[in-house]
């Protein structure tokens, strides 16, 4: 007998309903695509929501330039597979234009910078809704957010002014300049995403599976060694068998030691894990309120 719980089907029905509400209530929606498992799940849900028609909105990728190459490869493959439209905007361009300044120091990353690139893209394409793969189980500030999260003219989240959300009735009426962030998989947990990927037999980037990689150790976590990492003198790269639980930038996503080579063994591993998924994201550890602060600034 397998100890792996089955995927709760209600979650898929709820998410598809939300996808359709976005397509119906907004003029220019976009799906924020990062190449990670959550956005892969979103793409699948969007395919199902509108099938046999094509996904009626573009995928928007904010490319920090610090991606795992495997993620970009996967992204391009998925776009060909689904026939979806892809828009890419680059943090490097924002840096070149002087919109943002590259961080320096040991922990330098472009995770915070991407907010500006995103807000600029929203303005450029006049997107009125952006669909994201954030889940409420990820982080305590996310646990507080609505499914339709209205952002003001500056893209900011105002936690004290959230609209009540009753039953499944979604109110996406906004003024010019405002936009809405939509989170169709709000009620999914990390485990639900994995059991869904298993059930749907979805392809995912290879870095989720166990592989050999050049890494360093820092603050008790394992970091992928890359040209983007500001290596300290005492940090010596070595080879290890690892995988990633979440796909972010190479500069802020830690790996876990793992032999898990199949979806099933990943699920077994997660069931036994003592560390949360975002525990491997250095950006959240900056302070107790890091996520809420970033959301207030326009972050996803």
């Amino acid at each position, binding site marked *: 007998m397998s100890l792996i*719980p*089955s*995927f*709760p089907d*209600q*979650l*898929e*029905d*709820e998410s*598809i*309903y939300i996808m*359709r*509400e976005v*397509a*119906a209530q907004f003029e220019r929606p976009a799906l924020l695509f990062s190449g990670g498992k959550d956005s892969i799940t979103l793409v699948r849900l969007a*395919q*199902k*929501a*509108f*099938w*046999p*028609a*094509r996904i009626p909105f573009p995928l928007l990728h904010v490319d920090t330039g610090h991606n795992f190459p495997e993620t970009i490869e996967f992204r391009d493959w998925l776009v060909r597979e689904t026939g979806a439209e892809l828009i890419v905007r680059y943090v490097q361009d924002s840096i070149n234009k002087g919109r943002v300044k590259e961080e320096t120091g040991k922990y330098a990353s472009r995770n915070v910078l991407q907010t500006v690139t995103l807000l600029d893209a929203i303005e450029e394409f006049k997107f009125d809704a952006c669909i994201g793969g954030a889940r*409420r*189980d990820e*982080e*305590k*500030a*996310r*646990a*507080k957010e609505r499914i339709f999260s209205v952002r003001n003219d500056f893209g900011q989240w105002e*936690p*004290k002014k*959230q*609209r*009540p*959300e*009753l*039953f*499944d*009735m979604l*109110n996406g*009426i*906004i*003024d010019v300049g405002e936009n809405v962030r939509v989170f169709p998989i*709000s*009620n999914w*947990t990390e*485990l*639900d995403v994995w059991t869904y990927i298993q059930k749907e037999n979805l392809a995912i980037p290879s870095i989720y599976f166990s592989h050999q990689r050049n890494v360093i150790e820092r603050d008790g976590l394992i970091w992928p060694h890359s040209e983007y990492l500001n290596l300290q003198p005492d940090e010596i790269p070595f080879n290890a068998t690892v995988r990633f639980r979440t796909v972010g930038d190479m500069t802020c996503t830690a790996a876990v030691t793992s032999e898990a080579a199949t979806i099933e063994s990943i699920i077994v591993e997660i069931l036994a*894990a*003592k*560390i*949360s998924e975002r*525990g491997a994201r250095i950006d959240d550890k900056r302070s*107790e*309120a890091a996520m*809420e602060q970033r959301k207030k600034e326009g972050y996803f």
Partner: protein
Amino acid sequence: MDILRIATAGSVDDGKSTLIGRMLYETSSVTQDKLDAIEQASRRRGIDYPDLSLLTDGLVAEREQGITIDVAHIYFSTPRRKYIVADTPGHFEYTRNMITGASTAQVAIILVDARNGIAEQTRRHYYITQILRIPYLVVCVNKMDLAAYSEDTFTTLCHDFKALAASATYPEQQLTFIPVAALWGENIARKSDAMPWYTGPHLLAYLESIDYTSIAASLPARFPVQQVIRPKSEQYHDFRGFAGRVTAGVLRIGDRVVALPSQQKSVVEAVFAGMNQTDAAVAGQSVVLTLADEIDLSRGGMLVPENDAPQPVKEITAQVCWLDSTPLVPGKTYTLQHGVNRVKSKITEIISRISVETLVAEQGVGELRLNEIGIISLRLAQPVFAESYAANKYNGAFILIDEQTHTTSGVAFVM
């Protein structure tokens, strides 16, 4: 896997967030890094034990004030099922957030501080669980440690609560009482040794024993249309499907249906769930339906059985919970959203306001303010196909949207 949706309720500081935090802790749903963070945060606040309410009180403002402001959605699972918990605020000012969290709940847990007994907010929240017709209600008498784990205290409180429940408008609600000390995990996920006189189940055991099946599937079929699917491809050139989520009942291939509001009739030809074809669509499922005939049906419309269709209504009497700091006044117009359908509406009259203290309906009130509950009548620009909330809760509620601010100002239940 099955899902059970729970909402906490009760007056400010009665221990809702602590109870949920404790439940997460006891079911090993909290990872070590999160526990470490809570311990650190507690120490910074000068508390020498991990303050488990910090697991759900995630906003800076909440942590500063030690209260819940907005609803947090929390998840845990047991081998039996997945639980979705809405931890709601007790503070009067944030009642609208409590309603948001409770609207989808199948089980409400109302906490009562053993020392203080039933407060006005306890009553208000109880009343809201009644209006929402939440099928199960668990009253947790909390902080029993501060009442010397006294059986008398518990019995008295149960008695008081039952007196309140005697006036229930939804007597079918299943009522259960459990004495707990949330902070110490007494009767949360293990039987408490401190209260040997209590022979019932602990909270988790009770939740696990609930055998909830929604009645939605047994009601007449209601299929509100979200979108018309028209693929512009060679292969599906003539495809015209109706995308939506079945809110009630079942629709099968071959069923005779009528489209609302056009009143045109047809037959269900095919049912698509994602990329797969099936025979039937059951309440809760998101599907695409195709029909045998070309009929007039689009977003906001509804497909229903030919022999069991709801009536069009243009004048509605409804119970309303007001969620906006701008009061509801007669004569004002709002966008009314019933499911996914929006129409213009005008408040014709405030029939009464209900006092949560006495449950008496006061007549002759000029406005309904934030967090007040009343009965109103409205006139609609176009008819909707809503039914009484008591008869079909999946087709009996609507929201009112302010035409200037676009905020969701109220939620109403058709009488």
